[in-house]
């Protein structure tokens, strides 16, 4: 394809547009306003940055245009200092693909000076460019007057003022995109396109390979970039003086007053605590209702399918493999939606920057970021949305550590396991008259998870090395009313990403686990089935048949590959106080830890799998081999509790970790670390008793 930048865009053509701007320029809101739900999310090759592509079609005087718009990650300049900026730089330079036909630089009209740095750099790339003065309403409110005609003249490109909140100026922007031109002005003497390539990591790598030491090169590059920025700002100061009239005293008093409260030593933390409480309550309790509906409708379909399909391998696969796997994916949607809704509110309003501001010092000691507080606290509900939510952390090292430690927080799926085990070994005793002993044990488990999270983060801080420079030099945006529609679009996109990218891994593992627990070495499996069918025909009552069925399923599981594996691994888990029955439960609950309770119910052929009570009774009756001592004593129960507190046992988390880190190594180290920690801690616990 020929993409000569000088070419005038012809009518009825497809135009590829790149949306560029500083973070907080309202770029994403503008993108959502332009394209609505007509979006696609993909990946940039090799990095964990999401590629947002949106489409829009329109007609201007008999000519049809269709735009494909890329929302590039926010950047402050074309000299990249983060992965986000590097991606933006590469796309504009056309390093991996063709450069865009038109670059739209989005600026905050009330803060134009700083935003013009990136604009002049983009203009110097000699791509047809349009400048957007976004959030023009805020500039007007601050009595900032911008001479658009003059700005057009000095920059040499089209300039449009837009208010993406009420869609003012959107039509004009579309029109101007079709008219975009290459500026004949240049903002740094003799700047060449090639110069910008010097800063990208590919080029650095090439230099490093060639010279084995890029210190001198880096020094020279830094010197050049500094000179470039200084020069540009001199030009910008001139442009600014000619085109912008702002009142002497800038009144940002509202934001400052809010800051006085939100970053106050007492109220600041009090309000943050309240916000976290609300977020947590919503993803923990409110999400419970839709999750219940999803689970119920899936089990309804599974029952219907099981009843109507001819018995056999294929329908078993469909019902207990695929449908069960799908249910395990879809069930996460309410939590993901709610968490991203809240993160969207916090980000859009400007509060997230303040959370970072007041938490940074505390979290920095553990190698975390002030923004880690939201994912980590949400980890108590579910690690899956929390890990997806670490995107707000721009520092790679701090983000990776947050992803690594979040699954150590005790999530809601551990709750049924905790409740069952605690109720097995603890009497209903009151302490100090009002506190329940079991309540204390449960709280202890949550604290244990939190302690492990912080300690692990601290250890990782010492181990993990990244080449990326770590900054906290961060803009504190003014408070704004969040745009609900734009947040809604982001939520929908996040759900789509989860369903497609994590979903396929989860489904694959579900099917493998289904096979392991429903198939076995053929001979013994066959005899079992024959015996059961014979006995069933002789059973005289429905109750009797149910009992038979439960016993049959218990035997079937024992004879399956999962059972075989459980027995094989008994020597390994014996030091923890576990037998082969627990071994089977460990295997089946590898996909999701809450499956532990159900598997124990099947193994002990409990009639009613839904209620904890019947499993509990069966487990209480279980005695140690050739003795009268109960098998599930305190040592075994505590050992199991500690094991489940630390073990990964959640394929959805693993799938999401892979998707967010793009690294098998990172995912596997997490699995190995958590399994190792679980094993050692359970071993120590068992031997303490």
């Amino acid at each position, binding site marked *: 394809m020929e993409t000569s930048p000088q070419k005038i865009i012809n009518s009825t053509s497809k135009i590829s547009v790149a949306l560029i701007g500083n973070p907080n320029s309202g770029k994403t809101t503008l993108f959502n306003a332009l394209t609505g739900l007509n979006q696609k999310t993909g990946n940039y090759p090799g990095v964990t940055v999401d590629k947002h592509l949106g489409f829009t079609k329109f007609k201007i005087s008999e000519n049809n245009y269709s735009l494909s718009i890329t929302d590039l990650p926010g950047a*402050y*300049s074309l*000299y990249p*200092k983060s992965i986000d900026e590097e991606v933006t730089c590469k796309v504009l330079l056309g390093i991996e693909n063709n450069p865009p036909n038109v670059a739209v630089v989005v600026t905050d009209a*009330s*803060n134009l*000076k*700083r935003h013009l*740095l990136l604009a002049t750099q983009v203009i110097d790339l000699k791509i047809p460019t349009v400048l957007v003065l976004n959030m023009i309403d805020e500039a007007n409110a601050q009595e900032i007057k911008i001479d658009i005609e003059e700005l057009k003249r000095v920059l040499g490109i089209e300039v449009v003022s837009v208010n993406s909140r009420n869609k003012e100026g959107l039509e004009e922007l579309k029109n101007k995109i079709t008219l975009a031109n290459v500026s004949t002005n240049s903002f740094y003497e003799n700047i060449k396109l090639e110069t910008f390539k010097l800063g990208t990591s590919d080029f650095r790598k090439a230099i490093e390979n060639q010279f084995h030491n890029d210190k001198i090169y880096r*020094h020279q590059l*830094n*010197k050049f*970039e*500094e000179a470039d*920025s*200084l020069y540009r*700002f001199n030009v910008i100061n001139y442009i600014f003086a000619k085109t912008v009239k*702002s009142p002497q005293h*800038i009144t*940002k008093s509202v*934001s*400052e007053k809010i*800051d006085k409260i939100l*970053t*106050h*030593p007492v109220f*600041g*933390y009090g309000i943050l605590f309240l916000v976290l409480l609300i977020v947590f309550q919503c993803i923990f309790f409110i999400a419970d209702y839709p999750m219940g509906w999803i689970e119920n409708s899936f089990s309804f379909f599974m029952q219907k399918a099981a009843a109507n399909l001819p018995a056999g391998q294929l329908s078993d696969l469909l019902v207990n493999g695929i449908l069960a796997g799908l249910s395990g994916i879809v069930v996460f949607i309410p939590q993901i939606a709610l968490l991203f809704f809240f993160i969207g509110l916090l980000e859009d309003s400007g509060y997230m*920057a303040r959370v*970072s*501001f*007041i938490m*940074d*010092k*505390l979290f*920095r000691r553990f190698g975390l970021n002030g923004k880690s507080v939201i994912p980590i606290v949400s980890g108590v509900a579910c690690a899956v949305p929390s890990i997806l939510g670490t995107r707000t952390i721009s520092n790679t090292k701090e983000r990776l550590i947050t992803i690594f430690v979040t699954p150590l927080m005790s999530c809601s799926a551990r709750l049924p396991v905790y409740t069952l085990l605690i109720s097995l070994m603890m009497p209903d005793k009151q302490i100090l008259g009002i506190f329940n002993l079991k309540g204390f044990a449960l709280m202890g488990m949550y604290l244990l998870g939190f302690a492990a999270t912080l300690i692990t983060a601290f250890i990782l801080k010492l181990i993990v090395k990244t080449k990326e*420079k770590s*900054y*906290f*030099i*961060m*803009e*504190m*945006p*003014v408070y704004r009313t969040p745009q609900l529609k734009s947040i809604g679009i982001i939520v929908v996109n996040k759900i789509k990403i989860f369903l497609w990218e994590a979903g396929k891994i989860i489904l694959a593992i579900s099917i493998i686990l289904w096979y392991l627990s429903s198939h076995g070495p053929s001979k013994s499996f066959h005899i079992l089935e024959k015996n059961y069918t014979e006995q069933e025909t002789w059973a005289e009552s429905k109750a009797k048949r149910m009992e038979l069925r439960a016993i049959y399923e218990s035997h079937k599981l024992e004879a399956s590959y999962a059972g075989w594996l459980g027995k094989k691994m008994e020597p390994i888990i014996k030091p923890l106080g576990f037998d082969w029955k627990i071994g089977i439960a460990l295997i089946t609950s590898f996909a999701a830890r809450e499956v532990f309770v159900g598997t124990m119910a099947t193994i002990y052929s409990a009639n009613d799998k839904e209620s904890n009570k019947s499993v509990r009774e069966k487990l209480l009756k279980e005695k140690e081999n050739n003795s009268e001592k109960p098998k599930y004593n305190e040592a075994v129960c505590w050992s199991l509790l500690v094991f489940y507190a630390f073990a990964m046992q959640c394929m959805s988390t693993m799938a999401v970790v892979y998707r967010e880190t793009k690294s098998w190594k990172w995912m596997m180290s997490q699995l190995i670390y958590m399994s190792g920690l679980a094993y050692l801690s359970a071993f120590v616990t068992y031997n303490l008793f």
Partner: protein
Amino acid sequence: MLTLLKMKTLDQLKIGESAVIKSFSQRDLALKFMEMGCLPGEKITLTNIAPMGDPIAIEVSGYQLSMRKKEASTVLLEE
């Protein structure tokens, strides 16, 4: 080195205090600061200090910028 130690740096400002940027003592941070609008000659005002004493926030060219104290100590100010 001694003169550098004596120089007033951004992390030493008190809330409400203003100063003018002179230069930077670390090259790679200097570029980041400049891109964020902190240029030599620019007037800045310390607006906020986090409850635990770090990070801090300044007002520069009409907006608020936060940074850690360690980073602020590389910004040298005019006396």
